[in-house]
């Protein structure tokens, strides 16, 4: 589904942050992306999410060469990739429901056609009763789940989550992990960037470890 071959990235004229990164994310796979803080996890996620271009190497996304993807094609491809940002990036002036429905609304879909889907999804992530409140009154865990719901509303083929359990207590982290596992069982590939070893120990999954700009993959 997504393939990296000898990918390198540097910011401006600085040193290479990522060096010779090669891996393949198959469909329906589940993996953790880990490594010490500042190792480049978020940068690698940005490459996966097509918001950065590599300075060298080849990235293939859904069979397309990243360097040949035009700006016009990007929105369509992004809809196939769900992202949960570390800082949630919810819009504070929109309700939880509106935030989750945003990907559908920006495509001009009629609200009558997606209202039930969004409410079902909110119920699924446990925010059924919080649909019409604004994000500032949500707790950290609720915001996290709203962000996850927004990433899932278009039923992406792959979900990228950046430190999804960074702001929640261990019981909630376990419940979020269960949510990701269920999602994966239903057919979505999942990449969870985390440095929470305890979280990773709970699941027998592929581990991609970033250190000093290089990536080691442990199947």
């Amino acid at each position, binding site marked *: 589904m997504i393939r990296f071959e000898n990918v390198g990235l540097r910011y401006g004229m600085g040193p290479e*942050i990522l060096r010779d990164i090669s891996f393949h994310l198959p469909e329906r796979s589940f993996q953790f992306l880990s490594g010490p803080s500042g190792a480049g996890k978020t940068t690698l996620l940005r490459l996966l999410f097509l918001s950065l271009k590599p300075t060298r190497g080849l990235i293939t996304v859904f069979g397309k060469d990243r360097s040949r993807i035009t700006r016009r094609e990007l929105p369509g491809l992004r809809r196939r990739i769900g992202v949960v940002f570390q800082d949630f990036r919810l*819009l504070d002036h929109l309700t939880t429901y*509106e935030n989750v429905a945003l990907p559908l609304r920006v495509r001009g879909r009629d609200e009558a056609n997606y209202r039930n889907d969004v409410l079902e999804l909110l119920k699924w992530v446990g925010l*059924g009763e919080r*649909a019409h409140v604004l994000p500032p009154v949500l707790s950290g865990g609720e915001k996290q789940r709203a962000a996850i719901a927004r990433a899932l509303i278009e039923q992406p083929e792959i979900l990228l989550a950046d430190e999804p359990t960074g702001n929640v207590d261990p019981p909630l982290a376990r419940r979020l992990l269960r949510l990701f596992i269920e999602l994966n069982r239903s057919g979505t590939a999942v990449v969870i960037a985390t440095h929470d070893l305890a979280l990773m120990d709970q699941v027998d999954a592929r581990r991609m470890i970033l250190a000093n700009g290089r990536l080691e993959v442990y199947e």
Partner: protein
Amino acid sequence: MSERIRSNSPNTGFAGLSGLRMRPGAPRRNPIVPQQNVASTALVFVIAIMTFLSCLTLGAVTLVRDTADAWQSQISREATIQIRPEDGFDIEAALEAASRIAEEFTGVVSARVVDREATARLLEPWLGSGLDIDQLPVPRLVVVTIDEGATPDFTAMRDRLVAEIPQATLDDHRNWVDRLITMARTTVTLGLAVLVLMLSATVLTVVFATRGAMAGNGHIIEVLHFVGAEARFIAQEFRKHFLVVGLKGALAGGAAAVAVFIAFGWWSSQNLATPEADQAAALFGRFAIGYTGYAYVAMIVIIIAGLTAITTHMTVVTRLGALDTGYGD
């Protein structure tokens, strides 16, 4: 939602909360770009103030230009024949003769002798009332009204007058008109220069104020971008919002300027025949900017609102371009 998620819900640990119901009469959708924030309100004020000042400047330039035109046409519409008195010279006959000669020329609408009473009234401010004009060697005048479309041959008229009445001189006001035209042109040019500076300042202020207001919306652009919104959609949402902001400000500023013009017009009409109003009217006419002036005000309002929308569009497109094409940051 698909069946797959629905069927998995019991395993997530989050489901099973109390049943979900849409409230009857679900709340109105919030707009994607927030309607009210401090930056937008400040932008409305900035745009209103700059539009007001631009419209005032434009109105003032229109006023000066119209007044200068009026001065020119009033003065160049008349010429004066002056006849100096001499001992034993029948000045009344000479005045009649001069008037007749002038009227013979094509391009002369009429020639009117300024009679003794009128001459006395002209001199009243200097010599006081009760003046017996016959006791003083006062020159007498013939006012020649000219057809603006076809000016008579002043050289031929002057030659003929001097040949028949040696005491006569013809003043076609040419020197005075030329100086007035030069002064009026200088004033209008200066006014236009001030207007250009004012409009440039307005454009820059509106552009930077809009960009400032947009800076606070950067996170919204990013989120919309990352949830897969087309650039066209994002630009359109922001353009719509800021066009309304721009229109609000520009209309308020334009309306305030029009109110000032109407108030001055009213003041001058209320004070007709008072010395202050006469002075002001002599200099600036009736303080009316006319339909052209109002059309210019409307044009400025539209341009400024459009400028706000265009700046917003460019800011969004630039921001999206940076998000899409970055090699690193």
